[in-house]
């Protein structure tokens, strides 16, 4: 029972990732793409947590943490760039 629910949740997460990717491709402005990218990374963190659950390996959580940290920095830097250029 729990297994099925977890697979269903993982499927929904994958769908969310695909829709964010669609917005990333559609644009239209650079800001839209960055928003889509931000959402994609957060969804990807959840994806990594699902992978950790499926494999039963806690070490993947560190990957999720570092990924979140780097994506946050990335979004901030790109936003700064959009604001005034380098």
């Amino acid at each position, binding site marked *: 029972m729990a*297994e099925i629910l977890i697979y269903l949740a993982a499927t929904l*997460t994958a769908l969310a990732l695909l829709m964010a990717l669609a917005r990333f491709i559609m644009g239209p402005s650079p800001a839209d793409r960055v928003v*889509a990218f931000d959402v994609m990374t*957060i969804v990807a963190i959840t994806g990594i*947590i699902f992978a950790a659950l499926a494999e039963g390996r806690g070490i993947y959580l560190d990957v999720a943490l570092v990924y979140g940290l780097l994506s946050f920095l990335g979004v901030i830097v790109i936003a700064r760039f959009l604001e005034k250029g380098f």
Partner: protein
Amino acid sequence: MDIIGAILLLGGASFLFLGSLGLIRMPDVYNRIQAGTKATTLGTLLVLLGTALIQPQWSLKLLLIGVFLLFTNPLSSQVLANAAHRSKVRKSELTSIDDLEADREQQS
């Protein structure tokens, strides 16, 4: 315990799904940021909580990820919204008032 955790996971995943749906449906950047960041924050927090229930020995690290997301997520969306506004990204025609633009024009 596993069942409750799995239900939380499913709830979180549905919020992620709704957030992405909002990202597709909303008419302009600001509304997309709103739909995107809010739903994904709660969605991820629920997934973390569900995972903590299924694998209790991971709870400390999950808590760390949760606290981190709770602080960085709104910050990055605010910075993005500010950047979008400064670079004059098109607003939806539905937007009724824009005090920020009025004030910025006054200053310059």
